[in-house]
């Protein structure tokens, strides 16, 4: 009995203490911006960081030379003082820098820029090297001027190469030198642990309490403070940011409703919207994205080596159904590889497979397409009387029975939309007798299967944060990239396309390049190696009672413009 009593007493005491602590609310005068993160950032090593959460943090710290304005219409000089000056030879560019300082107060110089670019070239840093390998020389002309000499004219230099984040020579010189002496320099560089990243951005990292939160403070040395760039007066007007880590969106939404966070920096499911809208303090932002969600086919082997079957699949996939139900209307259909919002490059005159048809009409259309291409059924989807019926026994034009095929999708825990879309598409294909079954697979395994082994029939994948420059069209479909771990995952080979793609890479004249990109979109829409399905919208929710000034742009409100302009309400 005594033990029991003691235990009980101790428990009571503990509860009382906890409650007392809870009620003694945090009544300090601090007023930090509190942001929920879906996951902990992986790393603060900017070369290693490839996930959204790390990039979210690092984007506050490391800054590029140029960046897009919120309107996405043009690039504005950021760390650079003005637009790059091209010399007459067409391959030499000169960039003037703003007077800026690193967050420790030391000066930001041309040497830092040159160091960063050389580091990328020297270590062949994955993801960055492809944008720098065509740069021949990088020189710091003086403290505030950098000169780049290219091997040949390159369209993506301005938009893709000059937007990499610049790191400080001081921070990385020793690390790089030490790494070079190692057997595996790149791995050493990647695995270097960065405790306090040194940047030029509006905020500096104060503390990262692993598994719980990150604490950032205003960078007093931020070069943009008080400046007007892209028509906006920059702050930051927020003294501190607390990034809190919530494992699941549900809890983050509760936290938002409770007022424990001011913003959740991750797209949320449409399911939350209705409920959140009832809160007067919560505002929902629904933003355009530059993304692509598509069904990819394996063109290397039957049955999808036949364009007719791919077109038939394109007609069967009811994009509107997926958008209306799976995305709850928060998305738009895609017919090109490029999102329609990318107005300059987007070709609006492409085939819209199955548009406006209902289920039966689609099946009839597919029946027609496949019959013409020589396909036969033991039980056709449309009987002699013209009635739609469950189809069976689809035979290829060569007379062989179509083998069961699988559509690989990411697992539901990774992306429920794609997993469910896979199941829907499976049902739709079956209606025409195509023996498809959806098979969700862990993301790594799926990519291995599709990208490295090329062992699949079809898959559903997506790209987020595609650059505005459409150079990825070339990377996705040029036959040069049809190899192990290449991005031409379909195995699409078309000499005509290759030729246009190569030309588009080097054409510096915008209008001429636009025509080439238009043509490339047409070819892809005709041959359907990828069937673009939907472009989801980025839905974000913020509280309006503590901070205001969110800047909405492509990919949402979580951008550097917002953080430079947010200010406390009263």
């Amino acid at each position, binding site marked *: 009995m005594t033990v029991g009593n003691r235990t009980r007493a101790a428990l009571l005491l503990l509860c009382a203490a906890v409650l007392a602590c809870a009620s003694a609310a945090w009544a300090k005068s601090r007023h930090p911006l509190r942001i929920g993160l879906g996951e902990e950032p992986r790393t603060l090593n900017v070369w290693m960081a490839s996930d959204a959460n790390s990039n979210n943090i690092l984007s506050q710290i490391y800054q590029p030379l140029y960046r897009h304005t919120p309107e996405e219409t043009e690039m504005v000089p950021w760390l650079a003082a003005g637009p790059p000056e091209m010399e007459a030879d067409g391959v030499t560019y000169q960039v003037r820098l703003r007077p800026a300082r690193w967050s420790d107060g030391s000066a930001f110089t041309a040497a830092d820029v040159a160091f960063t670019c050389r580091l990328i070239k020297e270590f062949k840093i994955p993801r960055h090297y492809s944008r720098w390998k065509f740069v021949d020389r990088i020189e710091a002309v003086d403290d505030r001027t950098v000169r780049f000499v290219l091997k040949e004219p390159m369209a993506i230099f301005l938009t893709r190469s000059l937007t990499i984040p610049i790191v400080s020579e001081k921070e990385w010189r020793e690390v790089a030198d030490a790494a070079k002496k190692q057997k595996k320099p790149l791995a050493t560089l990647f695995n270097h642990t960065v405790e306090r990243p040194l940047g030029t951005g509006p905020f500096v990292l104060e503390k990262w309490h692993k598994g719980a939160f990150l604490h950032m403070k205003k960078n007093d040395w931020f070069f943009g403070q008080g400046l007007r760039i892209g028509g906006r007066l920059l702050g930051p007007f927020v003294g501190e940011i607390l990034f809190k880590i919530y494992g*699941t*969106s*549900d809890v983050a*939404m*509760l936290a938002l409703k409770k007022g424990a966070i001011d913003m959740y920096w991750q797209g*949320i*499911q*449409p*399911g*939350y919207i*209705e*409920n959140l809208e009832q809160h007067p303090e919560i505002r929902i932002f629904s933003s355009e994205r530059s993304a692509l969600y598509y069904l990819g086919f394996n063109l290397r082997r039957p049955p999808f080596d036949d364009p007719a079957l791919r077109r038939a699949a394109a007609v069967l996939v009811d994009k509107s159904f997926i958008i*209306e*139900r*799976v995305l*709850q*209307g928060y998305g738009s259909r895609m017919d090109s590889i490029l999102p329609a919002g990318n107005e300059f490059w987007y070709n609006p005159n492409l085939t819209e497979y199955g548009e406006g048809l209902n289920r039966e009409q689609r099946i009839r259309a597919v029946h027609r397409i496949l019959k013409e291409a020589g396909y036969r059924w033991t039980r056709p989807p449309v009987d002699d009387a013209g009635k739609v019926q469950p189809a069976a026994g689809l035979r290829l034009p060569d007379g062989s029975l179509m083998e069961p095929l699988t559509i690989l999708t990411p*697992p*539901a*825990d*990774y992306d*429920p939309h794609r*997993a*469910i879309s*896979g*199941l829907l598409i499976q*049902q739709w294909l079956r209606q025409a007798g195509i023996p498809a*079954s*959806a*098979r*969700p*697979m*862990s993301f790594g*395994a*799926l990519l291995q*299967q599709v990208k490295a082994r090329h062992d699949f029939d079809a898959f559903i994948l997506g790209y987020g944060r595609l650059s505005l420059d459409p150079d990825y069209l070339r990377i996705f479909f040029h036959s040069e990239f049809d190899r192990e771990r290449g991005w031409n995952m379909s195995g699409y080979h078309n000499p005509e396309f290759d030729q246009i793609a190569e030309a588009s890479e080097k054409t510096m004249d915008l209008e001429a390049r636009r025509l080439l990109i238009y043509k490339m979109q047409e070819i892809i829409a005709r041959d359907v190696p990828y069937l673009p399905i939907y472009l989801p919208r980025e839905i974000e929710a913020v509280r309006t009672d503590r901070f205001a000034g969110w800047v909405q742009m492509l990919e949402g409100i979580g951008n550097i413009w917002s953080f430079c302009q947010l200010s406390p309400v009263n």
Partner: protein
Amino acid sequence: MKTGNEQRDTLAAPAGRRDWLAGGWALFWENPIGKIGLILMACFALMAAASFVPPLLDPMYHPMHGVDPEISHATGPSAAHWLGTDFIGRDILSQLLAGARIAFMVGLSAAFMSIFFGTLIGMISGYAGRFVDTLLMRIADMVMVMPTLLVVLILSSLFGQLRIWTIVLLIALFRWPGVSRVIRAQTLTLKHRPFIEAARVTGASHLRIIFRHIFPNVLPLALLYMTFRVTSAIIIEAALAFLGFGDPGTVSWGMMLQWVWKTGHMFQAPYWLLPPGICISLLTLSFYMLGRAMEEVLDPRLRKEGESE
């Protein structure tokens, strides 16, 4: 003619098997835990049976593919959808009914398989003894310390999404050691019982002794353990599906919870969140209660006590 002794003998002999069963049943039914468990289970069995009905009424009630053409987002209970619909307009009630079927299927088959492996290994281990016993029991120790859920999680993530039958098999493969230990202990006590030796003397092979003589004797114990394994199999499958590693082609309750969770309806659609969770909890409870009550019937010590009361 019967001698007096023989008559007395007959009276002293235990009651017939049927009487024994009837006695067991009475004892079982007397136990409120057994009664509740059985009633609950009957309800779920009814649900599982009823799961075939809704799609027959209207294809829109198909738990996986059917959608209400009028509804394209999650809605609460209505006349057409008694428990409401999920976010793409599928009927929650028919999903719940189909889930009962899956739960029974997963629970019973995984439990059956793990009991099968466990009993087989336990009997072999106990009967063979020596090296075989040591080897099998060390393997059992090893498998026993593996947290099943995490192991299946790792496997499912390594080898792509698993089919429901693969999950069932994996659960079975990792849940046998407990059973096999109990069966082994039981086999050890049986092994030197005269009727086993009698069988050996008549020339019965080892296989015959194991399956013909030991097996029926350990079967009640195995069946008892099966009820507990059903519970754990259902929970593991549900947890796996909840975390997003289940078979996406099945409408299990765990999968329903996953849909609620991942589509952002967790704290806003109680009509969708509560039923699957309650069902999982109650079904596992019913099997567990059944097992507890059976345990009391089978345990002769408890039984005697029960009779004396």
